């Protein structure tokens, strides 16, 4: 218990530090607001253009709402998947890896603590995406099952963080300290970009890509969120190949798959990261200065 309290205290201390660092660059806040506004507007304009000809059934009839949810999943996933590697790299290159490893913190605590910057930077984008969509582009949402919605968001966060930790493990496991990180590149820049269905239903994809999309937590999270939150969405008609094969209500199946993926990816992520650190201890590549 004392150990857990110490980890939480440390995460809070890290968070305060990240807040001070983030706000010490005043221009950050201005560019951040501009960036969110311009990005969101671009996506919405694009969605308005495509929306007229896109059949999103059974996910209701409001394409902007459909895209807002896609955009939100993109923001959450982008942070959770991309941040751990960047944070490990920052700790390493800053020369603080030695200090953290000599502290009684778990290996993961500093990474989570430093990710607080993303809580400030990236997660509010989700709220702004909802706000802009609602105010300017006619997005509407339903919140009939808030518990299920929250559960899906949490599971999406956990599973993508798990993939992020797998990505972070390559820093030590593959000794990749500079250049492109392969796991993030393969997942985020190839598979997810193609098959996650941020801006279109995956039913319009070629069948091979639909099968590929089954390996992504995004697929199940977006299916569940759109069924739960887009007005007029159908909660019983199967869309995903797995839903068509298994006789389980779609949202229940989404939750089951998200739970399985959360456990799997978190376990793999932590396991691989710890193995990476062990390897670095043997090879002498754990800290910047030997």
């Amino acid at each position, binding site marked *: 218990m004392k150990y857990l309290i110490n980890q939480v205290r440390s995460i809070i*201390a890290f968070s305060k*530090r990240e807040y001070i660092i983030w706000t010490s660059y005043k221009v950050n806040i201005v560019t951040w607001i501009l960036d969110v506004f311009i990005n969101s507007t671009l996506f919405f304009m694009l969605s308005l253009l495509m929306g007229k000809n896109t059949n999103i059934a059974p996910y209701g009839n409001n394409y902007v709402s459909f895209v807002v949810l896609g955009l939100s999943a993109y923001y959450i996933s982008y942070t959770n998947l991309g941040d751990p590697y960047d944070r490990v790299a920052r700790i390493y290159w*800053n020369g*603080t890896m*030695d200090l953290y490893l*000599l*502290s009684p913190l778990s290996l993961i605590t500093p990474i989570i603590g430093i990710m607080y910057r993303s809580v400030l930077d990236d997660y509010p984008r989700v709220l702004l995406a909802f706000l802009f969509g609602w105010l300017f582009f006619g997005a509407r949402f339903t919140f009939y099952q808030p518990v299920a919605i929250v559960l899906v968001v949490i599971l999406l966060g956990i599973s993508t963080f798990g993939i992020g930790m797998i990505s972070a493990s390559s820093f030590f496991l*593959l000794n990749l300290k500079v250049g492109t990180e392969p796991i993030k590149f393969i997942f985020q820049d190839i598979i997810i970009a193609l098959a996650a269905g941020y801006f279109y239903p995956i039913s319009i994809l070629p069948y091979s890509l639909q099968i590929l999309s089954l390996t992504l937590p995004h697929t199940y999270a977006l299916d569940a969120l759109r069924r739960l939150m887009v007005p007029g969405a159908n909660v019983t008609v199967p869309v995903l190949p797995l839903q068509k094969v298994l006789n389980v209500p779609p949202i229940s199946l989404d939750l089951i798959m998200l739970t399985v993926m959360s456990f799997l990816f978190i376990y793999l992520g932590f396991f691989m990261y710890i193995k990476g650190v062990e390897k670095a201890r043997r090879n002498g590549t754990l800290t*910047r200065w*030997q």
Partner: protein
Amino acid sequence: MDDKIINVENISKIFNPFPLRKKERGPGLWVANLVRLRRIKENEIVALQEVNLFVNRGEIFAIIGPNGAGKTTLIKILSGLLYPTKGNGTVSGLDIIKDHEKLKSIVSFVSASFWMGLEWQFTAYENILQYAIMLGVPQDTAKKRIKEYGEFFHIDYFDKKVPALSAGMRQIISVIRGLVVDRPILYLDEPFVSLDPEKRMALSEVVKTLANKGKTILISSHEFTDLDVFHPRSVMLYKGKTIGYGFAEELLPEKGIIPYSLRLSEFLPDLESALFESGIIACKVPKELIVLDRVFNVRLLVRSERVNDLINEILKRKIKILDIKKESISLKDAYLYRVNNEVLN
């Protein structure tokens, strides 16, 4: 005091750096890293070779040696940041490989390079406090200790941000950061680097006080004058090998060598060569050559039976001996003798 708290048995460490081709990146690098295609034996760096030592509880123990001797590698192994390639050891009964996670709660580590880890957006005070909290020190206790050490080291720049601090100021902040944690074992890796004489003396004072309180201190340094204050047992490393172990006088393998401090009116290189070649002095290069008001202060390692020859050789050259004083063997004497011989061999 015979209570071994650190035990090192035949520890070796071999680094095998991965040879990178210029500008290499992308899938080629991923595959090469994964299967380590280019692991080349010739690239191996032997950082430590079968090092053995023990440190008693409450002892100040020194690790000395020239650059690249393996001092930092040894401390990193003993703190669990590195695994040895061969051999093993224990710290406070904990296996340094199997129990490395537990070492964290008994060891505090201060390194000359740790100032790199100071957060540049923070003040000196915030840096120390943040680290103490991270290491589980209650905030009130941490604040109290920071105040105490601040007063002791006369720190009047706690409120300054890191970029405004000089190298020495950053170093002392890193040192205080390690001291505030207050663990039973303290590793100090080159702690005197960049410190002014006043801070060096203050740090030596702290080290002695901590040892008197029963803390075990492992200290690596090139600053022999600072180390000699503790008259510590030491391990002397050279290219990863142990070339000496024990107190300063035990580090000299040759018996009957006595350091003499001389004040001479002149000291020429040919005198030095003549003294060494005729076996009067044991170390070729007199490292401590200070000229003050046209007076040469020289410290020579003289073979005890040849003291008269030394005086004759000097007088023969019409050099005046203004003063001659017998000294006790210091770590620096032992270091110069051993490293000199290693280099000559």
